[in-house]
C-alpha cells in the first residue's frame, strides 16, 4: 500500500505505460526497438499483477508469483530475440523490419 495513493492512480499509470509500449511497437522500424516496446508492455502488466495483488488480496501471493514468471519468461524471450536479431544481422546485415519481408506471402 502506498499511503495516499489509490489503486486507480497506479492503474492509470500502468495503462499509460502500456499504450506507450503499444505505440512504440507499432511505429518503430527497428527490431531491437520493437523488442524494447514489448518490454514496456510486459512491465506495465507486471505492475498491474503486483498492485492488484497488494491492494485487493494482500493475503495471497499469486500476483507476485506471476510477475516472477513473467520476468523469467521475458528474460528468456529477450535472450532468444537477441539471438535471432544477431543471426539475422549476420544473414542480411540489417535489423530493419522492412528488410525482413522476404518471407511475406
Amino acid at each position: 500500500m502506498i499511503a495516499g495513493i489509490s489503486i486507480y492512480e497506479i492503474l492509470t499509470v500502468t495503462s499509460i505505460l502500456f499504450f506507450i509500449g503499444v505505440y512504440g511497437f507499432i511505429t518503430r522500424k527497428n527490431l531491437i526497438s520493437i523488442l524494447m516496446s514489448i518490454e514496456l508492455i510486459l512491465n506495465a502488466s507486471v505492475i498491474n499483477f503486483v498492485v492488484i495483488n497488494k491492494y485487493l488480496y494482500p493475503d495471497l501471493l499469486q500476483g507476485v508469483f506471476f510477475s516472477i514468471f513473467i520476468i523469467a519468461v521475458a528474460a528468456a524471450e529477450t535472450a532468444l530475440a537477441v539471438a535471432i536479431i544477431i543471426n539475422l544481422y549476420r544473414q542480411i546485415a540489417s535489423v530493419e523490419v522492412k528488410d525482413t519481408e522476404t518471407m511475406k506471402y
Partner: protein
Amino acid sequence: MNFTYIILIPLIPLVSFLLLGIFNKKIKPGISGYIGVAGLSTSAALSFYTAYTYFFTIGKVDGVYQTFVEKITWMNFTDTLAIDMGILIDPISVMMLVVVSTISLMVHIYSRGYMKGDDGYTRFFAFLGLFSFSMFGLVLATNLFQIYIFWELVGVSSFLLIGYYYTKSSAVAAAKKAFIVTRFADLGFLIGILIIGYYTGTYDFETLNNPEGSTILNWASSSFMGLSIITWALILIFMGGAGKSAMFPLHIWLPDAMEGPTPVSALIHAATMVVAGVYLVARLFPMYYFVEDGFALNIVAYVGAFSSLFAAIIAITQTDIKRVLAFSTMSQLGYMMLALGVSGYDGHEGVGYMASMFHLFTHAMFKALLFLGAGSVIHAVHSNYLKDMGSLRKYMPITNITFLVAALAISGVFPLSGFWSKDEILVAAFEHNKLIYFVGIFVAGLTAFYMFRLYFGIFWGKNTTYKHTPHESPISMTFPLMILAFISIFSGFIPFSELITPDKAGFEAHLNIPLAIVATIIGLIGIGLAYIFYKKENDLADRFSNAFGIFYKWTFNKFYFDEIYLFVTKKIIFNRIAGPIARFDKKVVDGTMEGIGNKTVVISKKIKGIQSGKVQDYALSFIAGAVVLALVFIYLWTN
C-alpha cells in the same frame, strides 16, 4: 406393272461413284472410264426401257397416264409426317430419265476423249457418277423432301465438278460461288417445304398435286400479308428453283460455272441440273396453277420472261464462247419457265406446260451438243475466246456440221427440233399473255443472232493462224456429237402433246401456221444479221458496239451484277456484319468475361495487400479492432 427395277437406274451410278471414289488411285484411268460408261449405259438402257414400257406398253388407262409410286419410310417426324424415299413414275419423270441418261451417257463417252491424260481422270468419272445418281434421284423423287435431298446432292456434285481443277483459284471461286448462291436459293426452298409440311401435313407430290385434294381446295385457309400462306410457300420454292435454274437475279453463278471442264458444262450446266428448277415447278404444277388462281405461277412467268430477255442481251456481247452458251442456257431456261407460267391445266390449255417440257427435252439435246462442240473446239485451239478462233471449218468438219445443226435448232429453223418446241411455247404465250409473247419472239430473234455470231465467229470469219494446227477430235468425242445432232434434228417429231400434259391426258396439237411463220422469219432475220456482221472479217460489229457505247459496256459487264453481289457479300456481309460480330465477340462478350476475371485479380491484390506479413500492421489492426469492439460492447451495446 412392277417398276422396282427402276431403283437400279440411280443406284448403278452411285456404285460406280463409290467404286471409283474409294479406290481412286488403284484403278487405271482407262478402266475407270469404262466403268463409268458401262454403268451409265446400263442406266440409260433401263431408262429407255422404262420409257418404252410406260408410254407404249402400259399407255393410257382411262385416257390418262398412270402414276406409279413405290416408297419406303426414310425418317419419321410424326405419325403422319415422314420423309419417304422412293420412285415416282409419271410422264415427266420418265421423260427426264431419258434426258438425263442420254446426255449423261453421251458426256461419259465424250469425256473419255476429252479428259484423256488428265491426272484426275478417275475422280472425274467418280463425280460424274455421283452427279448422275443425284440427278436420277431428283427426277424420281416422290416428295418434296426427297427432291430437296437430291437437290442438295446435285448442288454438291456441281460444286465438285466446277471445282474440278481445284488448283486453279478461279475454278475454286466459281465452285464456291455456285454452291453458295444456290444454297441461298435453297434456303427459300427449304422454308417453303417447311411451310407446306406444316400447313398441309404431307410432303407427297401425289397428295399435294391432287386437284381435288385438300391442299389445293383449302389454299385460302391461312394467309400471311395478304397472300395465302401456300402461295408464299410456292414462291419460296420457286426461289429454290430459280437458284438452280439460274433465273434472274440468282443467275450470277452460271457464267462462272464455266470454269469446270466442258463436258461438265454440257451435262450439268446446260442439259440436266439447271433444268431442275423447271422440273420442280412442273412437278408442283397443279399447286402453282390452282393455288390463289396461279399468283405464284405469274411470278414464274415474269421472272422467266425477264431472265430470258436479260440473258439473251448479255449473250450478244460475250467473247468467251462458253459464257455465250451459258447465257444462252439461262435465256432458254427462262423460256421454259415462261412457258410454264402461261400454261393452263386442262386439255389444250396445258400447251404451255407441254411446250415447256418439250423445250426442256430438245434444248437439253442441242445445248449439250453445242457445249460438247464448243468443248471440241476448245480442245483443238486451247482457248475459250472468240478472238483466238476463226475458219475452223477447214480443220474440224464434223464439229462444224454438228454445231451448225445445233445452232439452227436453237434458232428455231424448220424442221429441226427447236422449231417445234419453241413454236409451241410462243403459241402458249400468244394465247395467254401478249406481253410475254412479244418478249418471247424478240428473244427468239436475239437467240438466232448471238448463236450465229458464235457459229460464224468460230468456224468462219477471220483466218486465224494457229500455233498448232487444229485437228478434228477423236472418235470418242465426235461420236456423241453425231448422236446428239441426230436427236436434235428429229426429236421435234416426237408427239409430246400426246405424252406429257398437266392432266396427263394428252391432246391433239396443231401447228399454228401464222405464228410459226412469224417466229421463223424473226429467227432468219437474226441469222441474216449475224451473217452480215460476222461471216467475213469486217469492222461492222465494232462500229455498232462503239455506237451503242455505254450500253454495250454495261451489257459486256453483265450489267455489273457480279459487282453488286460482290459488294453485298464482301462489303456488307463480311465487313459490316461478320467483322463487327467478330470484334464484338472479342471486345464485348469476351471482354466482359475477361473483365470479370481481371477485376477479381485486382481486388484480390488489394486484399492481399492487407495481409502484408508485417506484425506491426497486424498489431495495429488488432489494437484498432479491439478498441472498436470495446467501444461497441461497452458503450453502444448497453441494454
